[in-house]
């Protein structure tokens, strides 16, 4: 199909998805306060920085007064209290007026306690938008409710960084527990054909996303094989359990420093004879990496060379570590490994989408999962799948809980399968996650930010 015809179909799909957004439109008023807050954040980089740093430090504050102290310091800084004495501070125009007003409020004694409580509450409730609960058990109701609304899930276990063997062990235990809980929970859910099968066979209801960096403290960018030895036993045990419980095990992709370790380890283990029949498993491909096409070819070649009973899932994302990759490269003088042009990144995403869908249409035992909140990216995948005459179940769309709730509803409305990535964990871990998601969601380059601030749908659906 030529590009113009494809693009026409993308527009059709885009409009259908947009029409499926709750309240049928783009400018659905969010809770007033939250909307105001988002607007402030998007338009006010200093306030944004201050609030993110507050959310970041929030769990480390051991008392209310600590909390107030941090909040007012951060706001003061953003509001432009000169840091290095008169005359040397940045010029006033760069300061945040909102932050200064807030700083004055938090600085007043009488207001200290209520402000702290509000700040604590606000942050916690924001975190709850993104996090389904402390653990799978606690999230049980939420998971069932998602299922009943036509959404399947994958769980992600938030936690502190793994710096010791003990922490790796603990994470592996949490994974084990979660797989068992999920298998139990899933067994009680009502049948849902769109969520339970695709043309390649049954889809496990229990689905866990694992971070290899949490399994071992031995990930080393310069020595990828070191993590292989260190994490092999733990990941093996999880694969065996997933096979036994008939669950899906997905490994997330993290910063580029760890890609080689994660890929090598996972593919090496999956290729073992004992896993020929299962479990269902998958990996992530990050389109923002300029060499991601090579990585995709490597994955496809592996799928082809290692026929397994359970199809292999490739979750296509843009990538969540964009700033980190840019900063690391700049500090070391390396070529930036990610696209730095937003449109180039989106174009590449579409290119890889087509490559994945082509492979599936060509008969490979591959399950493409298109994970994005960008209606253009999603619409493109759906339009291309149609053009290849793939059955509707063949493409899975994925979103993040909290960020992609509206998107998920729109996908539901169009009758396609959507999987919601649900982080679970305690407040400390939740905060760090919240900071990352908020940063992403309020950056100038984000589709959701553009959508939220009322950009023209036609522009948003334009070919990148």
């Amino acid at each position, binding site marked *: 199909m030529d590009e113009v015809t494809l693009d026409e179909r993308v527009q059709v799909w885009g409009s259908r998805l947009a029409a499926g957004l709750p309240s049928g439109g783009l400018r659905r008023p969010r809770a007033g306060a939250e909307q105001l807050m988002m607007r402030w954040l998007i338009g006010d980089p200093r306030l944004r920085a201050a609030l993110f*740093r507050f959310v*970041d*430090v929030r769990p*480390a*504050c*051991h008392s209310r007064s*600590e909390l107030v*102290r*941090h909040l007012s*310091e*951060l706001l*003061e*800084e953003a509001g432009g209290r000169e*840091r290095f004495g008169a005359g040397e501070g940045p010029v006033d125009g760069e300061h945040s007026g909102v932050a200064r007003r807030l700083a004055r409020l938090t600085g007043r004694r009488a207001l200290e306690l209520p402000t702290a409580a509000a700040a604590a509450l606000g942050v916690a409730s924001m975190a709850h938008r993104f996090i389904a609960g402390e653990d799978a058990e606690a999230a049980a109701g939420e998971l069932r409710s998602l299922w009943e609304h036509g959404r399947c899930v994958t769980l992600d276990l938030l936690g*502190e*960084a793994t*710096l*010791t*063997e*003990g*922490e790796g062990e603990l994470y592996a235990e949490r994974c084990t527990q979660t797989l068992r809980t999920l298998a139990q929970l899933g067994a009680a859910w009502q049948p849902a054909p769109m969520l339970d099968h695709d043309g390649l066979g049954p889809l496990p209801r229990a689905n866990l996303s694992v971070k290899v960096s949490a399994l071992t*403290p*031995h990930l*080393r*960018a*310069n*020595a*990828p*094989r*070191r993590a292989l030895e260190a994490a092999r036993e733990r990941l093996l045990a999880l694969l065996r359990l997933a096979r036994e419980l008939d669950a899906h095990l997905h490994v997330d992709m993290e910063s*580029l*420093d760890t890609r*080689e370790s994660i890929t090598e380890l996972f593919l090496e283990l999956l290729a073992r004879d004992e896993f020929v029949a299962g479990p269902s498993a998958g990996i992530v491909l990050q389109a923002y990496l300029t060499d991601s096409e090579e990585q995709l070819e490597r994955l496809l070649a592996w799928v082809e060379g290692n026929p397994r009973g359970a199809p292999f899932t490739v979750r296509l994302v843009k990538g969540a570590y964009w700033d980190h990759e840019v900063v690391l490269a700049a500090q*070391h*003088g*390396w*070529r930036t490994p990610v696209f730095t042009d937003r449109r180039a990144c989106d174009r590449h995403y579409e290119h890889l989408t087509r490559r994945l869908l082509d492979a599936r249409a060509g008969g490979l035992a591959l399950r493409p999962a298109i994970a994005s909140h960008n209606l253009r990216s999603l619409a493109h995948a759906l339009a291309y799948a149609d053009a290849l005459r793939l059955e509707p179940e063949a493409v899975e769309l994925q979103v993040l809980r909290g960020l992609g709730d509206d998107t998920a509803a729109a996908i539901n409305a169009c009758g396609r399968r959507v999987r919601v990535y649900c982080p679970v964990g305690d407040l400390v871990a939740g905060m*760090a996650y919240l900071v990352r998601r908020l940063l992403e969601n309020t950056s100038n380059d984000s589709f959701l930010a553009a959508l939220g601030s009322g950009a023209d749908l036609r522009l948003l659906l334009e070919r990148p």
Partner: protein
Amino acid sequence: MTAHATFRNEPALELRREPVRAQALRALAELRTKLPLRIGSASGAAWGADGAGGGGGGELRSHNPADPAELIAVAPAGTAADARAAVTRADAALTAWASLEASVRVRTLQRAAGLLRERRLELAALEVLEAGKPWPEADADVCEAIDFLEYYALGAAALAQGVALLQVPGERNTLRYHPRGVHAVIAPWNFPLAIPAGMVSAALVTGNTVVFKPAEQTPACGHALVQALHAAGVPEDAVVLLTGSDEPARELVAHPLVHGIAFTGSCAAGQHIIRAAAEPHPGQRHVKRVIAEMGGKNCIIVDADADLDDAVPAIVKSAFGFAGQKCSAAARVLVCEEIAEPLSERLAGAIAALRVGPAEDFASDLSAVIDAEAVTRIGAFLEGAEHAPRVQAQVPAGTDGHYVPPTMFVDLPSSSRIVREEVFGPVLSCERVTSVEAAVRIVQEGDFGLTGGLFTRSPRTIEYVSRLGIVGNLYVNREITGAMVGRQPFGGGRLSGTGPKAGGPDYLLSFVEARSVSENTVRHGLVI
């Protein structure tokens, strides 16, 4: 010095990419075929039949710290006589080198940087073998050497412009910077290219000549630097390599023709040099200037609100990178008591996960220490704290490598040697404090003031500690080693050194003397 605006740090090798690692390993294998390297004699005499230098001092050998049976280089063990001969040569070369246009020296140094750049992998491999420096750090050292040459070249070009002075009618006032004379550069083995490259190039580019004595453990690295300078066009006698141990160094310091001494090394040696240099010698008509970078007992302060996910890896890196053999390394953690337990617990676990092995293995987190003497010295510290509970990582078994296990002590009494003295090895003391203020007082009461760290998420605490200026290099929420030229000018106060910041805008001023000229432009009552 606006010329610095064009400066860019040399990019590090991207060792996370497999082909780059493969290239590095090929360079190492290639270097191995040439071992042992034979280094010519200091006094210019041909390599003697007895393998000795011209002064008859016998020879010096360097070995791979991870495998002492592997001989890396053989060099003459310079004597006092060799040192005198070297100074005489450098003195004779002074006038010609000093009277060149500054731009000629600047270009020469830039050429030398280019030559080092061409040999980057080979030089990093040499550091891996001769200093036992793990790859990323060996590579960083080569980059830093290149950075110093480039940065000081730009600085010298700016310095040559002089400085604008106040002018009034009838006066023409100018200020120019002049070279001072022969400089002795006495360098350590832990940054075997970068530190000497900094000291030697600063002296050379400003018009001085140099006698350079590398550490006895790393003569081949020192030789590589001099080779590049000569190949770039620095006259043979304007920079003279003098390999050897203490004897020639003492002679250099005492020599009446030496005008400046640039030294990096231990505090004891530094203080000895400062004393010896102050002693005038017959025929000496100047005061020697000593630039000394000495030890550190560097503290990382961890506030109660710190993010341990960041603090722990940064502390581990600061304390145990290159087995703690950096003057910038972290020796003490001062942690606020609210989070002392979780911090020491996580640190302990992170240390237990460290891998100790040969520097050439990319999987090693830290390597052997430099030599057997270092093993004994560090061992004495550990034995002194015999009964104190400790956390250690494993060291490789069944090798002759100079391995010392990375070790942490928690809450040692403040009288312990490990708390008070510089260990210069992979040993960390973790102590609890009641507040950041209390930690600051501990830092201020210490003998040294080189680097320091602060982990906090409070802007006011950052400002409070920054303003106090308690150490030469304060690092906030990051590791405290790895200063970059032009980005983190390096050097400390108190007993850590005499001052000028290496890799900073002021460093070159220590190698020159300002001379001002005021010309009367009035003749017969007219300004002409």
